[in-house]
């Protein structure tokens, strides 16, 4: 009993600052490679697996007409990136990728949408098949809740998780809301340091 109490006290006070405090995340034992895909970014330029290589990425799946969860998540990811900028050099900062799964409504506004949150954000979309390909790689999910052919105000149910992708294009971890900026940055930083101690 005493031993257990000591352990609990150590856990509570003796441990180094909890890097993952308040962060809900799943770290994959083996990073899961993303299959090749072809999408376009907000400027109409091709965005493929190559654009995920050479730097860490945070990929979030959503839609531009999402009033609550998506703006909240993107604003938080911007803040996470801000916190990370205190810890890593600019070239090592993860890119934030917004996978827009509702191209009929997303395409026309995607450039303004991502720029609204952060000029460094990348918005990608494409044909349904290509969107579905990346969604599957991310182990993600979405469903357009159209109530008819002329429904323009439909909701899109989608994964809330954000994938943390290695510079080799493999998913290292998935994190879910809330994305408390400081703690999330510390969580991601630890994963980056583990992969590249320099």
């Amino acid at each position, binding site marked *: 009993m005493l031993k257990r109490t000591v352990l609990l006290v150590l856990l509570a006070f003796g441990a180094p600052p909890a890097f993952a405090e308040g962060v809900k995340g799943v770290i994959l034992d083996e990073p899961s490679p993303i299959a090749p895909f072809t999408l376009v970014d907000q400027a109409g330029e091709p965005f493929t697996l190559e654009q995920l290589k050479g730097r860490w990425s945070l990929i979030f799946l959503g839609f531009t007409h999402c009033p609550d*969860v998506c703006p909240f998540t993107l604003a938080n990811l911007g803040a996470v990136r801000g916190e990370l900028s205190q810890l890593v050099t600019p070239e090592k900062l993860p890119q934030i990728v917004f996978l827009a799964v509702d191209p009929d409504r997303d395409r026309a506004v995607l450039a303004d949408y991502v720029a609204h949150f952060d000029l460094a954000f990348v918005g990608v979309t494409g044909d349904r098949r290509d969107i579905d390909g990346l969604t599957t790689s991310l182990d993600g999910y979405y469903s357009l809740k159209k109530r008819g052919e002329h429904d323009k105000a439909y909701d899109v149910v*989608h994964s809330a998780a954000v994938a943390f992708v290695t510079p080799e294009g493999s998913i290292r971890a998935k994190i879910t809301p809330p994305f408390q900026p400081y703690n999330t940055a510390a969580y991601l930083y630890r994963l980056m340091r583990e992969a590249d101690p320099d």
Partner: protein
Amino acid sequence: MAKYHLMVVLATVTAAVVECGATLASAHDEHGTHAISAGPAEIRDAWSPPSPPGIGTRAVYFTLVNTACAPLKVIGAESLDFAQVSIHESSTRNGIAMMTPATQLTLTAGETVSFAPGGLHLMLMGASRNFHEGEHFRIRLIFDDQDSLVFEATVGGAAAGGNHDHHRQHKDGHPDHPLAETGGS
């Protein structure tokens, strides 16, 4: 120790009861032109995140307080600046984010409900125009007794709502078209 806890609980309950009665008596004096009906409601810090141009959908967040001694039932909302306003709740189940419309929201006497990102919010669709940071628009929250409360939401970050409190107005106290006056800057 147990006695201390009991005392704290008792003190809290007493305070709540006093506040409930006192609000009814003093609200009218404190807030002058904001007429208060029996069973007043209060909205604090209403804000709406800035949205990108071209997106006619936005969320509004605030704190809703039922300062009355009776339940308060919210049955809907409307705004002249938007085609449709509905009460929604975002939730994440099994890692999937979804929104569920709430047709009715009941606050018990004295209850405070937070409309906050990732949870309860008013979803506004079909904006009449783009709203820029610092601008305001009006929303009417409708209660089940035909009464309503008109309040202004400020476009900006969470702090944008400031300390502007809006109190439920009696139906006799409404200006002719309170929603017609859209604020702006």
